[in-house]
């Protein structure tokens, strides 16, 4: 089947080229982060730095409490993802297996929530949180995101694919809701949960806007805000430091992703009783 093999090879080659396109900008970023100011502003740009300037990274860490931002980012995204998984599973379970009343109403509500982005919502929430002195707390960053409309939509859909007989059988065996949820349902919808958790962590790790507007000082701020600090308006100067900052923000996620890849793939492809 030679034509098929050639097509295959061609396809992989194209994919590889595309992958290079995806990676190249990061190499540019990495390269830029090690250049001097003069070199990074040069046109046409050099590919590799003429001399390495790792002090750019020092400038990044000296200019803002990056370590604290990193810690905050981990805490916030982790907490959000963890709490979301719990609340979303509970809500979806109620909608699917307990036939909660007002299902359609809830779904409409969920839809509406999806279409009102944070830029639109923030002023009333800001005023409310300010009233209770909750600005500049993890509460302000985590709780508004403690549940997810998108998550409920997706997990509910996934739960509907679970055969009701299995749930019935477990119930007849005397299992309570949480046992059913934990031992029966969740393992069957794991790919959806993983896909959603991934989406959520990435989204909140990189969230700039909500963190910016809900915080007025550094105590709970996260990495994206830290990187914004490096930008100097108008001069376009310090591209090299900005690039270094970007590398600092990006690296933890890439590293985590590299490690988590195996688990991710396994989670995606593990199908029990499908």
């Amino acid at each position: 089947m030679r034509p098929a093999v050639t097509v295959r090879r061609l396809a992989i080659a194209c994919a590889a080229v595309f992958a290079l396109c995806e990676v190249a900008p990061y190499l540019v970023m990495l390269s830029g982060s090690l250049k001097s100011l003069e070199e990074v502003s040069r046109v046409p740009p050099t590919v590799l730095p003429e001399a390495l300037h790792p002090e750019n990274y020092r400038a990044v860490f000296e200019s803002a409490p990056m370590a604290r931002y990193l810690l905050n980012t981990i805490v916030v995204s982790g907490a959000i993802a963890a709490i979301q998984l719990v609340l979303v599973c509970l809500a979806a379970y109620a909608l699917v297996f307990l036939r909660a009343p007002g299902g359609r109403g809830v779904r409409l509500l969920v839809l509406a929530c999806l279409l009102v982005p944070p830029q639109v919502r923030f002023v009333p929430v800001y005023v409310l949180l300010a009233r209770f002195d909750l600005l500049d707390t993890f509460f302000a960053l985590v709780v508004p995101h403690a549940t997810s409309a998108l998550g409920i939509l997706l997990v509910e859909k996934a739960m509907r694919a679970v055969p009701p007989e299995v749930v019935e059988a477990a119930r007849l065996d005397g299992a309570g809701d949480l046992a059913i949820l934990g031992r029966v349902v969740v393992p069957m919808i794991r790919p959806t949960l993983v896909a959603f958790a991934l989406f959520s962590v990435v989204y909140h790790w990189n969230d700039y806007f909500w963190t910016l507007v809900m915080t007025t000082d550094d105590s709970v701020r996260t990495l994206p805000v830290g990187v914004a600090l490096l930008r100097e308006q108008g001069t376009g100067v310090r591209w090299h430091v900005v690039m270094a900052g970007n590398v600092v923000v990006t690296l933890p996620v890439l590293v985590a992703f590299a490690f988590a890849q195996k688990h991710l793939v396994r989670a995606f492809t593990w199908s029990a009783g499908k």
Partner: protein
Amino acid sequence: MPRRGIERGRVVLRLGTVLVLLGCSGPSDSQSAQASFWYSYGGRNREVLEDLVGRFNAREEKAGRPGRIKGTFQGDYFEALAKLRAALASKHAPALTHVVAEAVPNLAEAGVLEDLGPHARGADRLDLADLVPALSQEGTFDVPGGRPKPLVAIPFNRSTPILYFNRRIFDEASLQPPATWTELRAVARALTKKEGDRTERWGLACPLSWWFWYAALHQAGGRLLSPDGRRALFGSGPGVDALRLFMDMTAEGSMRLPPGRDYSAWETAHADFVGGRAAMVITSTAFLAYITDTARFDVGAAALPGHTHRAVPTGGTFFVLLKSAPTAQKRTAWSFVRWMSEPAQTAEWSRRTGYLPVRTSAVEGAAMQALYRDRPNFRVALDQLQVAARFPWNPQLLAIEREIVQPALERVAAGQATPEEALAAAAREADALLAGEGD
């Protein structure tokens, strides 16, 4: 997950949230004299600012006074303005912040700014007469009816646009920096180098920004609004001439209008100049240090060319205090403002960032005079203050700038309208806004 696991997980999470919540409430002690200072600087300016804040705090501590300033970054100018308003709406505003000149009338008329007159005359005295006239609130704004407004703003980082030119290119062509519009066009044309249909070098790079158009408007003898602030006067005549200056030069290929908006356009213009792709660039004096350091050629600075008049607008920001802050915090904030305006500090700020010093005594002092001797380019903006054009004191000023004029300029740049059409339409919109119909 086994059931016990879930239960345990939830308990842990709840506990964790509570702990974290408890551990991280911010100080809301209204008795404290620690004042929040919200600023919009990133990059190097921020570092200089934080350094100065640190020195102020150390000074206060040594003197045994309780006041401290806590500076925090709040995003860029416009994010910070948005947050400021949200904070005001929720009664959680900081004591001190800085805003662009065009935003001052709006905030002042809304009644949220602290009257600084008593502070200036009080124990922490500030010699208002020593402020550089063109940079102070009084010298920056034209109040309709002529009645002076209460003092609400002290100049912080102030600037004017100047004309930067590449000395090497000018020397090679035996040219002088242009002093009039006619000369500007001639010089730009002469220094433009084309290769086929690709331009290797433009004569001039200039972002299509309200600020530079405002300069040209006044250079052509025009005004933005009528003296009573009811009508827009920029829709024809000098306003159009001002825009035509840029558009005609762009049309004949001697000027580059960088793409993008706001600061990304400015950055492109700077990069073009520094990279030798533009022989001249019109931009703020605030970038003088950056451009001089980055360019690999001798950088010259000159006053903006004039037309029927010479004129430049001022730019940058003013310190403002918020009325709603507790008294103790306002006192600290004022101390800081006053300290920053002292000749020593304003000279240092000016040297390290490139903005203008705001005190006459600083200008005449040894440090700045030495700087001007060694680096005469830094004088250019200062000397231009003699022909500084004022802004009308009007709460709609910022809206007119960003919502009406700037998009009109962009429409013309994109070829969607002629200067006459766009500005006439803009003037009509501005009239409606001023009459209170627009919203």
